[in-house]
């Protein structure tokens, strides 16, 4: 029988995912401390919060990183840990780690100036995909068809002014069969998988891609668990594409949404997350 603990949920807004997590905790008799990321303050010495473990559901990469580092500093375990979010939230760092672990990923070249970005695009070949290193939901991603488009897009990105828009993450455009796959990893299991289809080349559910349940084949399971372990493990959505030469992992999301996955598969993802969090708390 597990000992009681207080679960901190660090969040930006309450979406269906967070509501399901709160309900799953309540159903299991786990007390919850809600920690709104726009309200919490972080003294250097822990003071005034009860949580024994924090589940990070903040959608802000910056807020997540600082907060998780503070929780770690206070001796409070987090799901996911700081280092996992740091790695996965930055596509450059994530790609390096996946490559180091031997996880197949799309061909990727990084450039640090607009001039070098053109060279990187030429090296990868057209069409290519240009992504900001931080951020998701398909925002500010561009499919670059040729050099002329590349010059225009790079000029626009440079005009945005932020230093992060001067880091160019260039990836081959994978000819996938009109869909990509998402395997949802909780601890040492893939609890559900789905395919996402879209008229848009980006299949993000956030952009209106439609989700369907997808059978977890041994190959998907092995690759998803390998990718998750490579970045440190925890609760992770591993995004895969069916490239002509086999599956590739293009992203590992450290604070994943699962509304579409839950609706499509009927799997109680929130319940799996809360069970995993309880397991971590009682280690």
């Amino acid at each position, binding site marked *: 029988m597990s000992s009681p603990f207080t679960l901190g949920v660090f*969040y*930006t*807004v*309450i*979406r269906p995912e*967070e*509501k399901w997590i*709160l309900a799953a905790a309540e159903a299991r008799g786990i007390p919850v401390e*809600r920690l*709104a990321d*726009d309200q919490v303050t972080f003294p250097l010495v822990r003071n005034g919060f009860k949580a024994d473990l924090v589940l990070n559901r903040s*959608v*802000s*990469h*910056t807020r997540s990183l600082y907060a998780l580092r503070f929780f770690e500093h206070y001796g409070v375990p987090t799901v996911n840990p700081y280092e996992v979010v740091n790695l996965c*939230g930055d596509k450059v760092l994530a790609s390096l780690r996946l490559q180091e672990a031997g996880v197949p990923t799309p061909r990727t070249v990084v450039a640090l100036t607009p001039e070098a970005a053109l060279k990187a695009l030429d090296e990868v070949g057209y069409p290519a995909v240009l992504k900001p290193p*931080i*951020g*998701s*939901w398909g*925002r500010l991603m561009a499919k670059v068809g040729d050099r002329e488009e590349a010059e225009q897009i790079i000029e626009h990105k440079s005009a945005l002014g*932020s230093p*992060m828009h001067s880091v160019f993450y260039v990836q081959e455009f994978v000819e996938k069969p009109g869909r990509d796959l998402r395997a949802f990893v909780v601890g040492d299991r893939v609890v559900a998988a789905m395919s996402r289809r879209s008229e848009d080349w980006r299949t993000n559910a956030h952009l209106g891609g439609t989700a369907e349940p997808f059978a977890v084949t041994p190959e998907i399971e092995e690759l998803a668990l390998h990718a998750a372990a490579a970045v440190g493990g925890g609760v992770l*959505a591993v995004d895969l594409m069916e490239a002509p030469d086999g599956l590739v992992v293009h992203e590992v*999301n*450290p*604070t*994943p*949404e699962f509304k579409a996955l839950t609706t499509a598969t009927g799997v109680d993802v929130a319940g799996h997350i809360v069970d995993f969090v309880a397991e971590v708390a009682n280690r």
Partner: protein
Amino acid sequence: MTQCPECDAGVQLKDMIEGEIFTCPECGTELEVTATQPFTVAQAPKEEEDWGE
């Protein structure tokens, strides 16, 4: 019952909780429940550049 800050339409709490995001049924604005007793709402926070999964 309270009013949508964008279109003044009446919105009801139903089974929502503090912090929950919902869409105004009249104008489609994304709103956040800022309190439940009494029920108050505000425009939901705007998506920022580093937001994502």
